[in-house]
């Protein structure tokens, strides 16, 4: 169990404290409720580009990284569709320095032309490294707009195209900061070897005077229901054919999320899964298969991705996936299968709960979902799922009508 205390500062900053005295470290994890889904469709990739700029220094701390390194600290950040997460770890005695740094960039980020111009270049190289200069790197660039027609999940966090990044202006950056980077749009987790009273005192000292931003409540967005199968074929200079199937799956807070996650594991997680046993081992259709949920807050996806064995026809391979899924829908799952994926899930959750940084990130994420206690309810929520729950929903979820397919062919 992860114990925590939540309090809210006058300016609306949500703070969660978690004490862990087994570690010599303290963590400050700051989550801003802004992700790529909040971007203008014509200026995509902005939340992530902005994340890079958060390291360019602030009014009173010109060299963010340098100051932190000097105090034996480390930091990093990541951007998702839904939110942007920053973290700092420091030896426990130096934690106030982290408060100074993190609050100062919330208070007055140093937005300047030079930093923007450099970080645009860096992000474009990141774009190339991860999406363009790798076999199959552009799968997401093609898949998302096939699945999502309305929802801003239709572009990846890195952005729809390189040109969106290169066109970003200083004005865009300033208004983005003003709109999203304030205390009432953030969740701060103070975790590690730090007592509650110290956490309270330092949080108030460094964060409470930062003014609120004008922050509209976000409406939950929905993608219209998919009514028939969709597919595209790509032909590129890649060594193997690849099949990707994306099924529309429940939102993170939907009561069916947990059964969906377990169903996903039964289909394709690990060497005892259906996909691996049948299509990699027995029938030699694929050399690798993978099955996972995107896990976003809004309309999510279950992805099945397989590398087709040379000599096997890609359409045949895709048909084999469909047969396998139909088999689950028609014949259901076994008690042992369900028990197995529940046990595996519990192991993963428990291992993740050992590391203080992981715990801090989880607390912040659950707070964003609106219920911090979820952090302690996960295992129980998975355990209440019954075989019947899964078989009842599998048919709808795994229907071809609910699916988008990419046939990625080797030229």
């Amino acid at each position, binding site marked *: 169990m992860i114990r925590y205390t939540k309090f809210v500062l006058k300016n609306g900053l949500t703070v969660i404290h978690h004490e862990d005295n*087994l*570690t*010599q*470290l303290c963590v400050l994890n700051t989550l801003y409720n802004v992700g790529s889904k909040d971007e203008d469709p014509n200026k995509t990739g902005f939340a992530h580009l902005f994340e890079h700029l958060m390291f360019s220094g602030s*009014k009173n*701390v010109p060299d963010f*990284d*340098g100051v932190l*390194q*000097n105090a*034996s600290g*480390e930091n990093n950040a990541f951007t998702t569709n839904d939110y942007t997460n920053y973290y700092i*770890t420091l*030896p426990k005695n*130096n934690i106030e*320095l982290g*408060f*100074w740094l993190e*609050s100062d960039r919330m*208070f007055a*980020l140093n937005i300047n032309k030079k930093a923007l*111009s*450099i*970080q645009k*270049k*860096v992000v474009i*190289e990141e774009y*190339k*490294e991860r999406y*363009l*200069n*790798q*076999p199959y790197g552009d799968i997401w660039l093609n898949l998302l707009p096939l699945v999502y027609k309305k929802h801003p999940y239709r572009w990846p966090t890195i952005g729809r195209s390189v040109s969106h990044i290169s066109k970003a202006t200083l*004005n865009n950056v*300033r208004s983005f*900061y*003003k709109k999203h980077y304030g205390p009432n749009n953030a969740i701060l987790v103070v975790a590690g070897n730090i007592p509650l009273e110290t956490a309270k005192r330092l949080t108030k000292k460094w964060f409470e*005077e930062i003014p609120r931003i004008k922050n509209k409540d976000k409406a939950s967005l929905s993608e219209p229901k998919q009514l028939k199968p969709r597919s595209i074929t790509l032909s590129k200079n890649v*060594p*193997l054919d690849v099949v990707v199937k994306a099924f529309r799956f429940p939102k993170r807070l939907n009561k069916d999320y947990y059964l969906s996650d377990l169903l996903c594991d039964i289909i394709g997680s*690990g*060497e*005892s899964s259906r996909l691996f*046993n049948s299509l*990699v081992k027995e029938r*030699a259709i694929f*050399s*690798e298969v993978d099955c996972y949920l995107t896990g976003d807050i809004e309309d999510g996806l279950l992805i099945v991705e397989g590398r087709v064995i*040379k000599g096997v026809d890609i359409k045949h391979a895709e048909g084999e996936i469909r047969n396998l899924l139909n088999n689950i829908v028609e014949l259901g799952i076994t008690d*042992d299968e369900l028990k*197995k*994926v529940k*046990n*595996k*899930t519990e*192991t993963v959750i*428990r*291992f993740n709960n*050992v590391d*203080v940084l992981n715990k801090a990130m989880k607390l912040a994420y659950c707070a964003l979902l609106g219920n911090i206690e979820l952090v302690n309810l996960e295992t129980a929520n998975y355990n209440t799922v019954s075989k019947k729950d899964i078989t009842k929903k599998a048919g709808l979820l795994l229907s071809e009508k609910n699916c988008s397919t990419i046939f990625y062919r080797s030229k």
Partner: protein
Amino acid sequence: MKKIVLPFFIDLNKMKTDRTTPIAFQTVSKVAIPKWQKLVLNNGVDLYYINSGNSGVLKLDIVFNAGVDKQKQKSIAKAVSSMLLSGTNSRNSAQIASGLDYWGAYLQAHCYPDDAVLTLFSLSKNTKNCLPFISDILTNSAFPETELETYKRNAVQKLLENEKKNRFLARRLFYSSVFGNESKYGSFSLSSDYINISRENLLSFYKDNYFGGIKYIIASGNTNKQTLDRLFCFFSTLHHHKTMVSPGLKGLGDKPKRLVLDKPESNQTAIRIGYKTINRAHVDFLGLQLLNLVLGGYFGSRLTKVIREEKGLTYGIYSSLESFTDCGCFSIETEINSAATQICEEEIYKEIQRLRSVLISKEELDRAKRYFSGLIIRSLDGPFSISERLKTIIDWDYSNNYYGSILERIAHYTSEDLMVLAVKYLNPKLFTTVIVGKKT
């Protein structure tokens, strides 16, 4: 033109907290050395353990003398490791996978140049149910022909995909050139190597190096008395394989080369520069680690500052210093805007030259030292991180205070010391350069 709207309108006089005076910080000179303990099993195997209280989980690292150095034919060590869970005389691969999965356990085999490790992640309440599978795997593995066919087929496919990645090609060219393709550190499998693997070779390697015995075991997490008793009884029944090779330093002096592979279709270029160098056995190693940090070992390093943060030519550039049993390897790697390949290479050499001829400022050196201390502290945080450090301590026969003493030793290095090390160890004349990407 629209007026620029500033993101904040704050009357600074109203702010109470003084943000302008930098916050004082402490230099960390001591690290709380976590306690680990050791049991000697009846068969002579050392079982090390790190107790983390009631986390409810247990990680078990079972180490074997089954690294690439033990193979007589290419690709065998890796193949045996990859196929350890592929079936025994009493259970097929599906039974092993579903049996372990049923108990929520993850069993992973990894093969390295100098050894191999089988790692179990399990809930501590379920560990006992996983042990029979481990025993079966370590005494009865059968390496069925059909499983071998699957392994070969999939390995060849994976290789085809990797060979489309510039980063992989650069790594392969670099290590096979610096260490030689027959060396355990430079050995990369080709399709033909996979095809040539036979069941007999697998069985013979397995018999000598896995069935032959365990080198040592590290348990981390919830290691209460009951768990330890159980591990003691269980692992005492298996064989012990005494360590034969002790680490040292041998065979330095690779031939520097320049290798360029043209990839007209790619839009980034992978670069790798470096050479075979000293390892932990050498007294200069720690200083070289610090020097490596200054050059390219962290985000505040010179290479990151110049090539990423000043010029925006790459998403990442790093230098690293690896320590193997017989030697070390220093290398710089990046994937770079192809048009800037030459500039990047020049800048790398410029920075190296600067380390060899101009003293590092005290400020820069102090920052690197303090960052280094932070690295050590973070690397000793939590039972699973500690188990990794403990492996180094065991393999190199260090004292328990090894990591604590590093903090003290690091503090003594001066800018002059690092310049001497740079002249000695960062000599461009020794470096092999590999470039894979579009020719410009």
